[in-house]
């Protein structure tokens, strides 16, 4: 594991120097070589949001995220208010915090590590697999991770260039599709969502903090949209919650708390979530897969 840490240090150093370099270049009035549109007043430098970021934050991204309530359905079924939608909508922000805390505490360190050092993608996926002990959550993570890998290969890779992250994704895909040999147990890959997300965002030049923020916001959106379909709240209340300063602060708080946490120290912060998500399999009727 220490070589992961070392590589991370070097990668962080490189990012820091790149930022310094571009700042110095800007002062020298040497704009970075880029497309011709750079000088047009419609495109002031750094003013447009990242094109890839807009794509990846789309709720219609074909990852199947809508199929997962991330524990909400089971959480509601475990309460007395399962038939009382007013009480359910009052309890919802609490659950959203718990769901985000769980995701951030267990997977954000892997996302950050994979983005900082995409070469470690396979190691990180293997380690995360050993830490994902809840079968329902494992299925959700692997389904979305593999879907994103497919999306990368079929749609995003063409214009992404040959960054280390793009190469890491290519190698990952080859190893993942290889028939596992019984004696080669070190090379078992699963395709978990967080590290694949990190590599894809890194390869499409989305910055680390944007990648992490979008990952958490997408998760919040999946849980909120599940709440709409589970009749916990209406669509306007749902958008209101997504737009709220409260949610922003929650996400920022979780990024701050996990920013320096190494993958070794990633841990479940809400043990009850493991129980709710794990007991999703016991629900009599289900609309979601988690």
């Amino acid at each position, binding site marked *: 594991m220490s070589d992961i840490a070392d590589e991370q240090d070097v990668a962080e150093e490189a990012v820091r120097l790149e930022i310094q370099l571009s700042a110095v270049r800007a002062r020298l009035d040497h704009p970075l070589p880029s497309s011709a549109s750079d000088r047009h007043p419609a495109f002031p430098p750094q003013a447009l949001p990242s094109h890839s970021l807009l794509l990846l934050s789309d709720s219609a991204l074909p990852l199947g995220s809508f199929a997962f309530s991330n524990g909400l359905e089971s959480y509601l079924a*475990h309460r007395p208010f*399962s038939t009382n939608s007013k009480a359910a909508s009052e309890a919802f922000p*609490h659950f959203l915090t718990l769901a985000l805390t769980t995701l951030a505490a267990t997977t954000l360190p892997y996302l950050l590590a994979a983005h900082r050092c995409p070469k470690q993608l396979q190691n990180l996926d293997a380690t995360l697999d*050993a830490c994902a002990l*809840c079968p329902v959550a494992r299925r959700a993570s692997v389904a979305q991770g593999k879907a994103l890998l497919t999306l990368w290969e079929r749609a995003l890779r063409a214009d992404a260039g040959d960054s280390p992250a793009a190469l890491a994704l290519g190698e990952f895909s080859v190893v993942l599709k290889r028939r596992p040999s019984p004696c080669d147990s070190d090379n078992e890959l699963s395709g978990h969502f967080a590290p694949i997300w990190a590599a894809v965002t890194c390869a499409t030049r989305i910055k680390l903090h944007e990648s992490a923020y979008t990952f958490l916001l997408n998760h919040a959106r999946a849980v909120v949209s599940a709440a709409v379909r589970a009749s916990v709240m209406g669509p306007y209340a749902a958008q209101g919650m997504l737009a709220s300063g409260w949610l922003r602060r929650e996400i920022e708080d979780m990024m701050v708390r996990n920013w320096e946490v190494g993958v070794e120290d990633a841990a479940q912060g809400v043990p*009850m979530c*493991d129980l709710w998500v794990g007991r999703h399999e*016991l629900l009599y009727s289900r609309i979601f897969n988690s």
Partner: protein
Amino acid sequence: MPSPFPATTSSIPGKGHVHLTLLPPFTPTFSSLTYTYPLKLLPSVPHTISPPSTVAQPNETLFPSPPQTVPLVFLLTYGGGLVAGDHIDLSIRLDLRTRLTITTQGSTKIFKPSTFPPTTTRQDLSVHVSNHAALWIAPDPVQPFAGSLYAQKQIFNVESGGSVGFVDWVNEGRKARGERWAFEGWRGRNEIWEIYDNGLHKKRMLVRDAVALDGKDIQGRMDGMGVFGTTLLRGPLFRLMADFFVEEFKALPRIGGRNWASASDAVPKLTLKEEWRKKRLQREREDGVLWTACHVRGCTVIKFAAKEVEGAREWLGSMLREEGSVGREFGDGGLMFVR
């Protein structure tokens, strides 16, 4: 936000080492059993285990004849608890075909630090289980008092034919004094590693179970529960028990399902096991026990929570006694913690 777990502590190491070996023909003997303050290791009378007649033995290489006795070691701390800065560092090594039970004589209390900045109380356990050996660790829960700061790490290195099972649970603190998850921080990490090429000591991590309860609103996250725990099982000696937990989990009643049977329906004659299950489910409802069990990566993970420690103890005891492996393979000492 700074981590509440300081990087350095002025820790007083309580080192312990247990090495169990098998003398011919089948007599387990401690070739080493050492400890320093504040740790105390107290070996009790070894428990005789009955010859393995109850279990069908698929083949002799998987289940060679067991040792005649299973030693029991009490893991104790002075005053029944750990003060801030205490550091317990215990290593256990089980040689070929030995078995060992580790238990406690009451919950391990974690006291609040009196210094500022607060120092973390730590417990580290490092285990090596050889082929055909088996370890069962069944302590009472850890009881972290308000304001305490605690971190534990348990690493199990298991050779491919070795077995390990343990219960790791934590409660809300001193409930009688109104403490409900009022500690500063509680961290637990359990890892099971498989040693798959003994000659080269190559190993890979099978599972890592990590919980970190710190930061804001720990009580809110626990959703009214008073105890939370994990049981991890690995290896041939725990195979039957692992399958039992998973089967019972699958047999739990569906949540949100309706009971269509009417009172006039003939009540089917229940088997002894169904009768036991019915009673257990009734207790689970009363005690607010929630649990899951699943096989994952060659291990079995059982998670449970209950309103109070006694409810969890009752549930765990009922499951372990009904299944029977612990009593049969480790003797009564392995069930003392659920008495």
